[in-house]
């Protein structure tokens, strides 16, 4: 029998016992829905975690430090005593500094989007006649996509070099009991500017006391400065939290603006002690185009003579955890489908009893055993297909309900809503395919039994 005729007959047979077949199909649908809802939860949570981690910038970033500064996990501190002549100490002394040249070289590496330093300094903020001491942190332009600014009061920096500041809400509360009113107002930042004089400038210095000071400090001086900034926005979370000691900022400036201020930083003290007089960075963050490029870039940076590390290994471990979680959820969800498959077997076995005579007529008219088997298979497959489609829709609705409920709960906690359930196209397709396969497997026994019926006995059956 041709496939189209077979399908016609199967659908017609299903329609005839509409109530029973519908109930069986609904059973399959509930099984598939449970599977889809479970797996969509796993996929959604994984997606959420992945998005959050990607937005955090930790998985597309390589953190670079100079070998002479780096104290890696379990690593010994570089020893700087004059008497130490070990190879390691010598290597540490000769290691490349993380300065402007190094920053430019890193930026030229393939697949690198952006290289930025950590600009963090202590400051005094003057606002409304009061003075507040706090930390300032420069934020690169890429931080905009980190998710920390979603739902912020006000707006992100209007340009990378603008004289604007974003305040962390706790600090904003120190400035005003109603932080929202601060947006658009001006505040004054007091900080120490690092000023480095060249040897020629020192030599030409007319004031002998100043000249002596500059000579003693290697030409590095710290000058108090003030900068007027407009408050552009207020954020709830900390966009700078993460690896490399970026946390703790309460006032955020565009990185370009922060760098232009030349603020004195802890690394300056280190350079002052070393007496190089040349500015260097404690650490640089290298943003790569995609997380898949991280290992490649990391290797290239190490080759350049710097210490580099990323969190990709941790991410891979996390992926494994989610895979196991998905498998567990899928197995749990499949239980309902397994129960539903028993319903299919029951329905089809009942159908064989009811349609015994019909099977006999089919065979008398020339149907082969295979035709009869295929007809029952088609009916089981059709129930699986309809149940699968209905189940995916039902599973999607359950997922949406979960998202809706979670969002309502989070909003009540004054947190932004999230989607914890996601039904990607491949999950829908796999669920339908799985449903059809399980249904066909359930149809195996009834179909074989129907095909083996003796036509004479079947025709005699009342």
């Amino acid at each position, binding site marked *: 029998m041709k496939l189209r005729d077979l399908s016609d007959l199967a659908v017609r047979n299903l329609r005839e016992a509409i109530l029973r077949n519908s109930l069986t199909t609904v059973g399959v649908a509930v099984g598939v829905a449970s599977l889809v809802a479970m797996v969509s939860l796993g996929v959604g949570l994984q997606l959420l975690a992945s998005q959050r981690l990607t937005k955090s910038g930790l998985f597309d970033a390589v953190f670079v430090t100079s070998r002479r500064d780096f104290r890696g996990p379990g690593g010994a501190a570089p020893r700087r005593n004059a008497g130490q002549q070990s190879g390691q100490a010598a290597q540490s002394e000769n290691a490349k500094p993380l300065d402007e040249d190094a920053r430019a070289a890193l930026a030229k590496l393939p697949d690198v989007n952006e290289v930025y330093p950590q600009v963090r300094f202590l400051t005094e903020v003057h606002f409304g006649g009061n003075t507040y001491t706090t930390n300032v942190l420069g934020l690169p332009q890429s931080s905009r996509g980190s998710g920390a600014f979603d739902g912020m009061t006000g707006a992100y920096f209007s340009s990378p070099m603008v004289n604007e500041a974003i305040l962390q809400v706790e600090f904003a509360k120190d400035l005003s009991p109603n932080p929202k009113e601060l947006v658009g107002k001006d505040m004054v930042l007091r900080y120490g500017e690092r000023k480095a004089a060249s040897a020629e400038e020192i030599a030409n210095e007319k004031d002998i006391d100043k000249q002596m000071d500059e000579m003693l400090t290697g030409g590095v001086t710290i000058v108090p400065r003030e900068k007027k900034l407009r408050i552009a926005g207020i954020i709830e979370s900390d966009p700078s939290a993460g690896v490399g000691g970026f946390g703790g900022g309460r006032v955020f400036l565009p990185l370009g603006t922060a760098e232009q201020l030349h603020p004195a930083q802890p690394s300056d003290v280190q350079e002052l002690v070393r007496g190089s007089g040349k500015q260097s960075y404690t650490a640089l963050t290298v943003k790569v185009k995609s997380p898949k490029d991280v290992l490649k870039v990391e290797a290239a940076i190490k080759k350049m003579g710097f210490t580099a590390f990323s969190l990709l290994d941790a991410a891979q471990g996390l992926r494994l955890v989610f895979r196991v979680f998905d498998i567990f959820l899928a197995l749990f969800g499949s239980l309902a489908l397994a129960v539903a498959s028993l319903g299919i077997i029951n329905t089809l076995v009942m159908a064989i009893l009811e349609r015994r005579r019909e099977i006999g007529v089919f*065979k008398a008219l*020339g149907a*082969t055993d295979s035709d009869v088997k295929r007809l029952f298979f088609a009916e089981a497959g059709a129930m699986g297909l309809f149940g699968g489609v209905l189940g995916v829709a039902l599973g999607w609705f359950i997922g949406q309900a979960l998202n809706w409920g979670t969002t309502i709960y989070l909003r009540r906690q004054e947190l932004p809503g999230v989607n914890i359930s996601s039904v990607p196209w491949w999950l829908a397709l796999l669920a339908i395919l799985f449903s059809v396969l399980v249904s066909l497997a359930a149809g195996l026994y009834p179909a074989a039994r129907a095909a083996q019926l003796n036509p004479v006995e079947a025709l005699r059956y009342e």
Partner: protein
Amino acid sequence: MPRALLDEARGFYFGAEIQAVKDTSLLKRITIVLTFMADQAKLIQAENVSRQYVLGETAIRAVNDVSLAVQAGEFLALLGSSGSGKSTLLSMLAGLDRPTSGAIHVSGQNLAELDSVELARYRRETVGMVFQSFNLLPRMTLEENVELPLRLAEVERDERNGRVTDALERVGLGARRRHRPSELSGGEQQRGALARALVNRPTILFADEPTGNLDSVNGEHILKLLKEIQGSMGMTIVMVTHERPLAERFANRMVVLSDGRVVSDGVLA
């Protein structure tokens, strides 16, 4: 007829290199060919057919060593009391059941040697069947019932409608094609079943008590139809019945069975 002579004749007829045939005289050759042609006219040939059922520890021979030949175009009535084995014999001739022993040759092929797929093809292409209880599928309309053998034979959809219409008009049910079996009278249902049996243009029509569930008027009408089909289509009909008067009126030949054996075989006038 001796089997060896028949094999010789087959070889001769199909030009096989059989030394024995080549060496024979012209008269003998003619005799051999005529013998073979007469044998070919025997559309169905049952040779020592038995069918045994085992019920618990008892073996029941429903058909016991029956040999029977049916000529092409013949209308044969199988008569006998209940349990005489006539329906069992019909089932075996129709390829629905297999003999426990013996051979059934139809158009030269031994049904006992066919596998289930070949036997299904035989039922689909060579045979049409009519049952006592009509056996129309209640969930289908009349035309869908009649179309069913065409679906099984994988006849193209375009061709099906014309053949269904022809078959239904032949039995006078052209106007009732969209009705379900439950909306038809017994006589109409049997005529519908007859249309379904004819739609694949079979060589042999097997009818198992076709009038058993009908009143005398409708029974006679069905047999008239069968007779007409036999005449117009040159079809061979084998009918099981227990109504001797009807058999005597419409069949060409009457075979009576009792306890699984042929007790009489006679040509009717």
